[in-house]
């Protein structure tokens, strides 16, 4: 492991100023991605500024029925927070199906959003990889890409965004709040995640020294009836092949409101807006769910090893929405 300098900050502004003071300065939160990748020589920070003492770990209710999740709140704590578990079950479910209990205890929510891809060619520190070494090429496109993306890809990168929680947050129109050298800003989460395009090394709009202070989830009655379906090679402690974050309000057998996002199939947490438009105001039937899923996956650009994801994603969407619709029927109140 290469040497690096270490400093521990007590307040947000000092943390930011300390990172800014060196071009190779980085924040250190839970460390579950960062320490791993520094040891693998994929990341080479000269200075790590430990921000774990900053008072950014709260989960607070917002006046609109939403919730403000501190950037340093741990995955395990957020999953169990009453305001999250009761009003946004899709977030709790996504968190608890991610990683392992030990990793969830360590990992921060901001770090979860900023975690790096699991592509083996990115992580081996040797192969051509446009994310790690811009311009060097993409070894995955012609190599092993069974787990890679079929939506939002480019000829520069096809790595899948690995987060589960981010899929739920994208479905719920969360807002990423930051503080940095130019002050504070709020970025809609769908704009926070960038498509690879010609610059796959750029994954989000954060500037050097810009810190995620909180993630706001706006209040949404629909979110009370929401779920996260994760399909993977083994039942636990594994990344998604396909996942579906869904919230749906069915009234008189009609889709009155729908939020849908996909994980495991795209280069960013994928808001399924095409499927949402297809379903909104129409019948909440299995046929309608299948047609919406078909339209969402129509632009998919699979490669030989990940072609199965196109069908799998459609089936997962239908299953998730059918379960939510059946729950509404059984509830009998609408």
């Amino acid at each position, binding site marked *: 492991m290469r040497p*690096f300098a*270490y*400093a521990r900050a007590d307040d947000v502004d*000092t943390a930011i100023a*300390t990172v800014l003071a060196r071009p190779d300065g980085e924040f250190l939160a839970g460390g579950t991605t960062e320490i791993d990748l520094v040891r693998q020589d994929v990341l080479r920070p000269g200075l*790590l500024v*430990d921000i774990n003492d900053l008072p950014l770990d709260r989960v607070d209710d917002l006046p609109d029925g939403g919730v403000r999740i501190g950037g340093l709140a741990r995955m395990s704590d957020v999953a169990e927070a009453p305001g999250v578990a009761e009003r946004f079950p899709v977030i709790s479910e996504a968190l608890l199906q991610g990683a392992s*209990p030990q990793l969830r*205890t360590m990992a921060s929510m901001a770090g979860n959003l900023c975690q790096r891809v699991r592509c083996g060619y990115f992580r081996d520190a040797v192969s051509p990889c446009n994310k790690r070494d811009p311009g060097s090429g993409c070894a995955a496109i012609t190599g092993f890409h069974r787990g890679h993306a079929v939506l939002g890809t480019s000829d520069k990168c096809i790595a899948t965004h690995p987060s589960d929680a981010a899929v739920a947050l994208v479905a719920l129109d969360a807002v990423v709040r930051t503080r940095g050298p130019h002050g504070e800003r709020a970025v809609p989460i769908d704009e926070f995640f960038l498509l690879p395009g010609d610059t796959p090394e750029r994954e989000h709009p954060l500037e050097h020294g810009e810190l995620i202070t909180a993630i706001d989830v706006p209040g949404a009655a629909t979110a009370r009836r929401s779920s996260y379906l994760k399909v993977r090679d083994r039942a636990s402690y594994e990344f998604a092949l396909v996942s579906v974050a869904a919230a749906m309000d069915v009234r008189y057998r009609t889709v009155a409101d729908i939020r849908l996002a996909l994980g495991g199939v795209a280069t960013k947490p994928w808001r399924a807006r095409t499927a949402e438009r297809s379903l909104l105001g129409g019948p909440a039937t299995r046929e309608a769910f299948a047609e919406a899923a078909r339209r969402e996956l129509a632009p998919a650009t699979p490669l030989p090893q990940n072609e199965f994801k196109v069908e799998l994603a459609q089936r997962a969407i239908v299953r998730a929405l059918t379960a939510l619709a059946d729950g509404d029927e059984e509830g009998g109140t609408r």
Partner: protein
Amino acid sequence: MAIHVGSPPLEGTSKARTVALTVNGEGVELRIEPRVSLLDALREHLGLTGTKKGCDQGTCGACTVWSDGRRVLSCLTLAVAGEGHEITTVEGLQDGGELHPMQAAFIAHDAFQCGYCTPGQLMSAVALLEEGRAADDEIAEWMSGNICRCAAYPNIRDAIREVRDAAGGE
């Protein structure tokens, strides 16, 4: 609104420094560089070799310890970042020479073969009971962060159930 900081940025150095840790209730000081993991500090600098290095990349769980009572992976924790926290290792489970009930149950149920993952399994198993995730249909999922190459999983689950039931709850 730009950031204005009253105090200058913190000094950060990659050189060895004195790090004060609390391990199993005892204060210890060691001279280490910031890049030293908590796992290496425990094993190589403090001689606490109960905690095991399996993958060294946060996958296997063999290095599981507690920080302030919560289970974490010591391979992905910097030792210097452990300052200010109570670290507990498998050596801290015993009480006055008596095995922790979970350790005794692991022996009684033959919950290991090679034993390499066992310290991590124990630290997770005891934490699991604290977390209230020891119902029959929860144990496997909440122990999933600890890999056992010998596949002693059924016996590990038996041991956990025994301690859970002896404690009178789930």
